[in-house]
């Protein structure tokens, strides 16, 4: 299957190993991966902060670029960015043709774990990683895209990895985009409750499908001098 990678601006600039791991995992699962260098951003930061006009411009560009791709699927290592693409249609209230084009793109845009398990039917990519880890359900992936069992299936097949569930796996990490810097104290207060549960679980790593959550969680863990590291699902699945 031919896949077009939607790498996301965050991964592109701040966590490129997530992108390279994602490509490696998709190839191992039998996909041919293309990367359109004209892509930049899905528009989520603007959309979530109420800048609909700016978000609309960027969304249109996204739709135009990816509509040209012959790939059967557009795959992204980010639940929130994938969810954004699925929300594109909301931006085109009085532009019915764009609404249709947005729906068409959304129909073939998938988050990585959802693509592997639901579309390819693959839940084992031959990865191995020794140790105890826990999974953080990133909000948009969980609630907008119903991603819950897929990452757990994939992690379950990582040789040597022991998945420990924290009691508030579904609780928000407090990132919320610009919320994290508009209300930093509240953001960190929410985060600390997640950190508490992680520390109680006695794990070596926290894994999630969203780099933004991992930046939030990882940033606090390292500030507190914790030995727990953060890892993106793509990185875990690429580990041998």
């Amino acid at each position, binding site marked *: 299957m031919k896949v077009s990678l939607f790498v996301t601006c965050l991964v592109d*600039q701040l966590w490129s190993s997530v992108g390279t791991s994602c490509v490696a995992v998709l190839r191992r699962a039998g996909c041919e991966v293309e990367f359109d260098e004209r892509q930049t951003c899905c528009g989520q930061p603007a959309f979530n902060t*109420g800048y609909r006009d700016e978000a609309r411009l960027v969304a249109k560009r996204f739709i135009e670029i990816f509509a040209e791709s012959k790939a059967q699927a557009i795959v992204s290592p980010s639940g929130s960015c994938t969810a954004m693409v699925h929300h594109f249609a909301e931006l085109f209230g009085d532009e019915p043709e764009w609404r249709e084009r947005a729906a068409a793109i959304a129909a073939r845009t998938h988050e990585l774990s959802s693509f592997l398990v639901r579309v390819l039917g693959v839940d084992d990519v031959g990865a191995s990683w020794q140790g105890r880890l826990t999974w953080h359900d990133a909000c948009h992936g969980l609630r*907008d895209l119903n991603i819950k069992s897929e990452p757990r299936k994939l992690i379950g097949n990582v040789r040597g990895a022991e998945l420990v569930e924290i009691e508030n796996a*579904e609780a*928000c990490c407090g990132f919320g985009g610009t*919320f994290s810097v508009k209300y930093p104290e*509240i953001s*960190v207060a*929410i985060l600390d409750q997640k950190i508490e549960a992680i520390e109680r679980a006695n794990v070596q790593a926290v894994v999630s499908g969203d780099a933004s959550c991992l930046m939030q969680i990882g940033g606090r863990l390292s500030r507190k001098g914790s030995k727990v590291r953060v890892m993106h699902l793509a990185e875990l699945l690429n580990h041998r």
Partner: protein
Amino acid sequence: MNTETFAENAKAALNDAQLRGALRKATTLFGIRRREAAASLSNWEDLRNEARAIKDDVLLHLDRYLEAFVSKAESRGAKVHWARDAAEANLIICRLSVERGARNVVKSKSMTTEEIHLNAALEGAGMRVVETDLGEYIIQLAGETPSHIIAPAIHKTKRQVAELFTTELGIPPTDDVGQLTSTARHTLRERFASADVGISGVNFGIAETGTIVIVENEGNIRMTTSLPRTHIAVMGIEKLLPRFADLDVFLKLLPRSGTGQALSTYQSFITGTKRNADDEGPDELHIILLDNGRSRMLAHPVTRQSLACIRCGACLNVCPVYQQIGGHAYGSVYPGPIGAVITPQLIGIEKAAQLPYASSLCGACREVCPVKIDIPRLLLHLRGEINQQRTNHRKERWAFRLWAAIMLRPWLYEKTAVAARLMQRWFGLPLQAWTSGRDLRPIEEESFREHWRRSR
């Protein structure tokens, strides 16, 4: 505390260890009970869909249903009054009370009456008003406002309540909740027995029969609406249901969502006035229909869903922001996720411009809402409105225009990234808001796309 000082209010709340402890305990317990109660019904999702469909129907035809409700209620002896805003509602209620020579008023818990600041108006007109719901009684004694939609004194510890009762009611210090409760029972009974007017809210108004439905656990609503000669019920115009049978859906959803109970202890179904003068119950029933900004919300499907709210409080308990800062920080009558979306609509976006941003958009509220209000979508809608009306900061608007310009031009995007890398290396990045509490992941020396090109 008001809505315009939200940021400061929140910071103060975060530094209040006692408050945070009380909040954590209460919201955790409410959350567990709600989950269990919802799980105990196999048709929970069907009920939610049904409830939302009923509410959508009511709101889309609100004028018709209101006319039916009023006509039916009046035919059964109720007097219906219309109040365009809080001031008008208070004027009507004070006039009714003064005309009847009322001195003592007993009130049951009603967020709508908090919204219009009724107590202050009644006291201004020379009346003694006492809140009879235990939680509301506690905060009335403390001179505070409710911090939660269904558990007004949730922020207070047992110790704080005990100290309050000792100071205000003169009882010996005690740690026993049973004793505190029976103190309130005795004190308030005297007030019930001597009250001239009883004021309540309304949970549901039934258009088909003209019935008002009020639910509670304590019994003070039954007291308030049975003992005094005059009963005044304050009802937001959106509180209607079309048919009596619709209560099957809503009485299943409301108590489970609010406290995890299958049914609250008491439901009062009041249809007009008593048939005979010597029957038990009030001589008069006055229903005050309140608009106060609600009709404006009908103008768009996204905002209209705000009016479906049945005031269960489930969204508060599950909200990561509310869990940390509590209700007072919002500075408004309605706190939490629902408060963040209806307050700007009720009092004006300019006065409550911070509230729609005080959310990480996690969506937990939408998941638990019994009538499926899409609060995150509403928050985004309001953020868009704030931007449209230029209530936000000019610097931010220009920042996003620049952002869009960069994102539309891949070559500019890459140049900007390189510039940011250099800035990071030489000066560090100006993100104090992030780095005050968290380490910042540095911009990569080689981006993914550069790596991709290199390894082709």
